[in-house]
């Protein structure tokens, strides 16, 4: 039912940095409920129809394997180690605020989700998956992720918009062996051709309940001032910075590894998330040309029923009627059987 909605995806973007302790980070659950991996600052830059998503996974101690699931707006053309100072430089530019999800045990690859790409970056094993919420959830479960109870609904929520997910599994033992210290981050740069940036925010509430706090920063770099939905004024969103990017920032970012795509001019937006988990039921839709962001991408509307493959819905309806008839048939048979034996 959800597969035919796949092409509607908008795009991805950025998350961020929380001031929360490791144990309170969004949805990232390790053995015994402990969280050992933080997703720290994230940056979403958009230029020439390509999303550049840079985030860092910070080692917070512990052992074993831990991971994170991130919904993406499309299939990445590359996933590579990020530059050394992009995230720090952005934080310094806007006055910072600091950032992350599941556990893995390494099961065999048997799920129905399609593995599109796999790459190892330092102590991180990254897998890009294509599939519906059920397929991706099963893949995660079979690979030892202990998903929180909201995961089935949240994965469906995202899969209806884009069936692409990035699973990052952090091997804490390998990190120790590499000499990584607590607090060390591993930057990852994901390049995604897409029509417009999109920032998944609801996923930050995964694993949290009710009044649990979520604090995060979203950095956007677009060619011009973007239009945002929801506009960050309420529901736990705040617009902290919106101005032309300074030449010094752009020059510094461009000089980092893999960042030569940074344009000569651009618009820098910083959005702070300071919300309760129950507030964070939306994503951030962006129109990079300043026009009209998608309500579907923002999670404010379900993807339209006028999808490209409405026939699938009809097929399901027919199948449901068939099942109802079959159940009715079974009932009749059982009643008949009772009558006969009476």
């Amino acid at each position: 039912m959800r597969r035919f909605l796949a092409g509607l995806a908008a795009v991805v973007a950025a998350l961020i940095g929380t001031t929360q302790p490791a144990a309170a980070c969004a949805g990232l659950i390790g053995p015994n409920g402990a969280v050992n991996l933080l997703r720290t600052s994230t940056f979403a830059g958009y230029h020439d129809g390509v999303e550049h998503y840079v985030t860092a996974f910070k080692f917070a101690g512990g052992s074993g394997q831990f991971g994170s699931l991130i919904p993406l707006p499309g299939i990445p053309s590359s996933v590579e180690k990020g530059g050394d100072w992009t995230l720090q430089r952005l934080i310094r530019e806007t006055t910072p605020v600091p950032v992350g999800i599941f556990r893995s045990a390494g099961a065999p690859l048997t799920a129905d989700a399609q593995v599109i790409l796999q790459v190892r970056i330092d102590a991180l094993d990254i897998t890009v998956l294509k599939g519906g919420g059920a397929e991706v959830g099963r893949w995660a479960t079979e690979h030892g992720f202990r998903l929180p109870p909201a995961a089935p609904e949240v994965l469906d929520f995202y899969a209806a918009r884009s069936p692409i997910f990035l699973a990052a599994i952090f091997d804490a033992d390998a990190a120790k062996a590499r000499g990584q210290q607590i607090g060390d981050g591993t930057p990852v740069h994901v390049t995604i051709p897409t029509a417009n940036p999109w920032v998944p925010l609801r996923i930050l509430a995964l694993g949290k309940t009710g009044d649990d706090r979520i604090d995060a920063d979203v950095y956007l770099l677009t060619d011009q001032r973007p239009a945002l939905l929801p506009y960050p004024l309420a529901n736990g969103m705040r617009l902290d910075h919106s101005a032309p990017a300074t030449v010094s920032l752009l020059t510094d970012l461009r000089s980092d590894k893999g960042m030569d795509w940074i344009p000569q001019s651009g618009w820098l937006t910083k959005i702070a998330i300071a919300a309760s988990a129950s507030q964070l039921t939306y994503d951030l839709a962006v129109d990079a040309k300043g026009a009209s962001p998608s309500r579907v991408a923002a999670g404010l509307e379900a993807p339209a029923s006028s999808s490209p493959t409405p026939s699938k819905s009809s097929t399901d309806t027919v199948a449901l009627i068939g099942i109802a008839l079959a159940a009715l048939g079974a009932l009749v048979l059982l009643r008949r059987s009772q009558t006969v034996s009476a």
Partner: protein
Amino acid sequence: MILRTLVALALAASAAGACAPANAALPTQIGIRIHYSRFEPTKIEVPMGVPVTFTLVNDDPIEHEWLIGDESFHARHRTGTEAVHGDRPNEVSLPPFATKTTTLTFDKPGALTFICHFPQHEAYGMVGGVMVRP
């Protein structure tokens, strides 16, 4: 997925119609679906003193459990360490997308609850109630 659930629940429902005692409106075959980490339905009435069969359908890609009992039973399980249940009919582990049946005979009238005691699942709302009627 929807079809599988409907088949299981429809068969449970049809069997209920066939097997319900002639003198009782309360079903002895009950289907419970788990979807998005919630039980459907959450309120059930059952007759006392006769076997009641539950068909449990986990539609989620994550593991759940269905444990039914009184408050002291649940207090024990909230702090329990059993990773998997299966030896007792009132304690059922449900792997992702699994369907299981279990049969119980309730010997006392009153209210019981069924809960999934995996971390965070009860707080998320995986709670239902069973009223045993004499």
